[in-house]
């Protein structure tokens, strides 16, 4: 490393400290705020109050259940399609790539407007929180597709399929014993990212009036500010865990989802 290069790096230290402060201060302040008990007293009262609320756990479990359902539906729809595209119809790849960009073109708030205008029933579907899974699959689609696409490209699925079939494997065996086990890391990465997206999703749940985790945090924010701060930190920890998982399974490859 030359002296000039070292100076170039050294010159960035004050800048990086300022940026670091910008990112650290809100988290620290939120942490302090969540421990504030009025006046100059600090303690864990907000956390104790939060964990005793049954609606919090209900909303947390609801969001988690929706995340699992979204993963399941998304994979059932996407795995066969992307697998077949790689194996037999590579000419469809531009179509798939185009479709995977569409969820960005139609922002969530627009999609919810379109869905409420188009679908008003059946009642057993639109009046339960499970209805949210339908748009959540669309939200997670770009990330699930990209994870599967990268995973299958690395796999050389054509050679693998021919090898399996030459050894006498049928289609079921091929998919469940050969393809899916080889895609495990890609699938886990996509699943964790979906969890991060669904656990924080607010737009659909708020407009369609379902009490998910993010909606509950917003509700608490209107009534008990210190408890909202405690839940904010909890949400940060959930995001951190999910993203660490994504990074570990994705060989350092970073992805972006989220409910902005």
């Amino acid at each position, binding site marked *: 490393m030359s002296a000039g*290069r*070292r100076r170039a*790096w050294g010159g*960035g230290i004050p*800048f*990086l400290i300022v*940026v670091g402060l910008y*990112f650290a*201060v*809100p988290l620290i*302040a*939120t942490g*302090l*705020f969540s421990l504030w008990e009025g006046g100059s007293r600090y303690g864990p009262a907000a956390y104790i109050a939060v964990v005793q609320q049954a609606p919090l756990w209900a909303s947390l479990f609801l969001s988690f259940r929706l995340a699992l359902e979204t993963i399941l539906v998304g994979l059932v729809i*996407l795995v*066969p*399609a992307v697998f*077949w595209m790689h194996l*037999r119809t590579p000419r469809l790849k531009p179509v798939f790539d185009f*479709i995977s960009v*569409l*969820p960005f*073109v139609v*922002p*969530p*708030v*627009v*999609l919810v*407007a*379109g*869905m409420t*205008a188009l679908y008003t029933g059946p009642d057993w579907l639109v009046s339960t929180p499970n209805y949210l899974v339908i748009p959540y699959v*669309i939200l997670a689609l770009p990330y699930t597709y990209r994870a599967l696409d990268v995973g299958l490209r690395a796999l050389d699925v054509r050679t693998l399929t021919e090898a399996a*079939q030459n050894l006498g494997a049928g*289609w079921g065996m091929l998919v469940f014993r050969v393809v899916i086990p080889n895609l495990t890391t890609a699938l886990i990465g996509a699943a964790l990212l979906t969890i991060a997206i669904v656990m*924080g*999703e*607010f737009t659909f749940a*708020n*407009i369609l009036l379902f009490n998910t985790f*993010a909606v509950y*945090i*917003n509700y608490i*924010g209107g009534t008990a*500010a210190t408890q*909202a*701060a405690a839940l*904010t930190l909890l*949400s*940060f920890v959930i*995001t951190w865990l*999910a*993203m660490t998982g994504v*990074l570990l399974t994705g060989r*350092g490859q*970073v992805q*972006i989802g*989220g*409910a*902005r």
Partner: protein
Amino acid sequence: MVETGQVLTAATARPAPWQLSAAGRRARAATVATALFVGPFLLYVTAFLVLPALRLLTQAFSGAKGGVTLQYVAELAEPQVLHAFANSILLSAFSALVGLIVGGLTAYFAMGPNAPRGLRSFVTTFSAVAANFAGVPLAFAFIATLGSLGMITVWLKQWGIDIYAAGFSLYSLSGMVLVYAYFQIPLMLIVIAPALEGLRREWREAAENLGASAGDYWRHVGLPILLPSLLSAYILLFGNAFSAYATPYALTSGSLALVPIEISNVLSGNVMLAPQTGAALSIGMIVVMVVVMALYAVIARRVNRWGRR
């Protein structure tokens, strides 16, 4: 191919397969198989993404008593609607600019070849978390920090500095830029890191051997090569901020005029506006996003032309 034919003709007995030649039967089986594997995916996207968007298009042009009308689309030119679009575009443009500059410099300093390895991996992990840590929790983190009763606001007041009296407000457009930067900067880091890695060490060394200073190198070599990547990153950041809903909603309780907020106000019946107005606003939003993504695609193609070694 042979296996496909055998398995799938058996599974899908179409009319009179015996009339087809062996090759024709195989071709038909392949088509049926494609429909079986890819069909559900295409059907899903059509039913729950394309059709809802098209429904908004027809709704925006249909009158309250049926028939075609341009009334609601013309409402997009009303001052308050233009105001919402202007706010949304300003907020997106500024927060994307902050993300571009701060994120770009951070990537340069913290992820460059001379930076410590530990810092690099920490920044990568933190960016992944912060880019996904948005919406309601992010808004509350900033309210607890810089809201009118936030920790920093109160702390500064004890030192005699009243930032709200000085004109700062977290709930104004400039305050929102500060909040949006929290997910824009990490997003920029994630998007630009591969492009920075693509800058070859040899180019820099060649420039230095020819007597170029660091400034010369960046002005004549580094930045021109990075320019398409920077532009596409900016567009991505713009689109990211433009479609944000949860963060501004939780921050301002839906009072600041932004397009996504206006749409949700129409949907929730908070304002006396026809559903068609919401549809017209939505179409306006899709138009902006289509322009954004088209620009992105054009520039991304240029990036690929440059970037491959």
